């Protein structure tokens, strides 16, 4: 197991009576491209803010680069190694693109000047334009430029593709992949664009109600999660939902649709033994997986 860049255990945070984080566990391996998924209000941004020391948790622990978050001695040193893109891509409206680059540069000894012009060109950001005149998408790209150029070992991106049109999204994905490939940077990002996450992530985590629901390597999840479609000649068996590995069962007449998270072979074999059963297998997309766990998928009968 590679060492973890981010380790979160039992993290808890309440805003008044509401629990934003309710015992969250999360582990981000070094060098991974980690997609952090969840509905609005599930606790993604709260987690990210805690990692950056902007919010104090009520319980649990978090470590970055092995250091506890919130240790005042380390926190400045840690922040020097992290590139961050905020949820609301707000920068200083009175500065120009060039101005904020020059402002941010001296804070980071590892700043890579040669990348500046490259990203200004790739992202089509005009140097002289005032930030207040930039669209949200351009500000997203500018924040990304700032985060990448300072040579961070870890990028923490809160919805980095917010406000971007498809060609711009592709640009950003390409750059993120290039960084992951060339510099081994760990990329931890939250996003609502599931197809984009599916494209470049090697690990995903789905959280809801401040708790971790699903976490693992994306390839494994896609291999183990399968949908079985079953047609019975008579009444379908009632105890399918209780079989180990079955996540949900949907039924319509003599047809069952079963979502399985593991042991698909065992389950399929057992089902095949029932009289007059025809079984088909379908792969499961990330979107289906997400909706099943978080949205409307849980129902049977």
């Amino acid at each position, binding site marked *: 197991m590679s060492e973890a860049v981010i380790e979160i255990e039992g993290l808890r945070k309440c805003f008044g009576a509401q629990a934003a984080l309710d015992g969250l566990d999360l582990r981000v391996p070094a060098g991974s491209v980690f997609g952090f998924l969840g509905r609005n209000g599930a606790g993604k941004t709260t987690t990210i803010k805690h990692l950056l020391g902007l919010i104090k948790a009520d319980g649990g622990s978090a470590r970055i680069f092995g250091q506890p978050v919130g240790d005042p001695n380390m926190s400045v040193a840690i922040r020097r190694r992290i590139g961050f893109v905020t949820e609301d891509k707000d920068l200083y409206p009175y500065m120009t693109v060039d101005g904020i680059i020059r402002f941010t540069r001296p804070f980071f000894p590892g700043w890579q000047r040669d990348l500046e012009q490259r990203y200004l060109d790739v992202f089509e950001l005009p140097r002289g334009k005032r930030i207040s005149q930039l669209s949200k998408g351009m500000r997203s790209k500018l924040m990304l430029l700032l985060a990448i150029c300072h040579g961070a070992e870890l990028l923490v991106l809160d919805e980095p593709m917010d406000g971007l049109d498809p060609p711009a999204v592709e640009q950003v994905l390409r750059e993120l992949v290039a960084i992951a490939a060339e510099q081994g940077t760990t990329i931890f990002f939250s996003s609502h664009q599931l197809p984009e996450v599916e494209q470049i992530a090697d690990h995903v985590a789905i959280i809801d109600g401040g708790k971790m629901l699903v976490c693992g390597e994306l*390839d494994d999840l896609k291999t183990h999660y399968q949908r079985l479609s079953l047609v019975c000649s008579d009444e379908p068996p009632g105890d399918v939902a209780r079989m180990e590995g079955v996540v949900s069962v949907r039924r319509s007449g003599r047809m069952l649709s079963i979502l399985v998270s593991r042991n698909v072979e065992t389950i399929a074999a057992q089902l095949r033994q029932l009289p007059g059963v025809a079984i088909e297998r379908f792969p499961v997309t990330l979107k289906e997986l997400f909706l099943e766990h978080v949205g409307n998928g849980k129902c049977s009968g």
Partner: protein
Amino acid sequence: MIFHLNHSSGIPVYLQLMQQIRHGVETGALRAGERLPTIRSLAEELVVNPNTVVRAYRELQHEGIVELRQGSGAYVGRSVVERRQIMTKGGKLIGSAIERLTALGLSEEEIRRIVENELAVARKKSDTEVA
């Protein structure tokens, strides 16, 4: 070699890459001894996670289709030509089976389902044998 990836198909990308490289070898788009793109450049070109490419190449190496040479990259295996011949034989077998099933009155969709079912049964058998 051009790849066509479907990220939302539910099939892991590395499997799709593997399938398409194998197919490339069968159809002759990739020749024995030919150099495959580097992991980095392929990942950047397809805009996929580099680990995905790594995994595809490694699994293909296990199957003997790809050779990973230290320092110089990935190459199509020399034993690939034999594989192509076996594939051609396999094509003939399946072709005649399909003819016969069609004669029985089964549709294309039904034939496909039978094939998938039988593959699953065979896989289960080999899994239990290994275990």
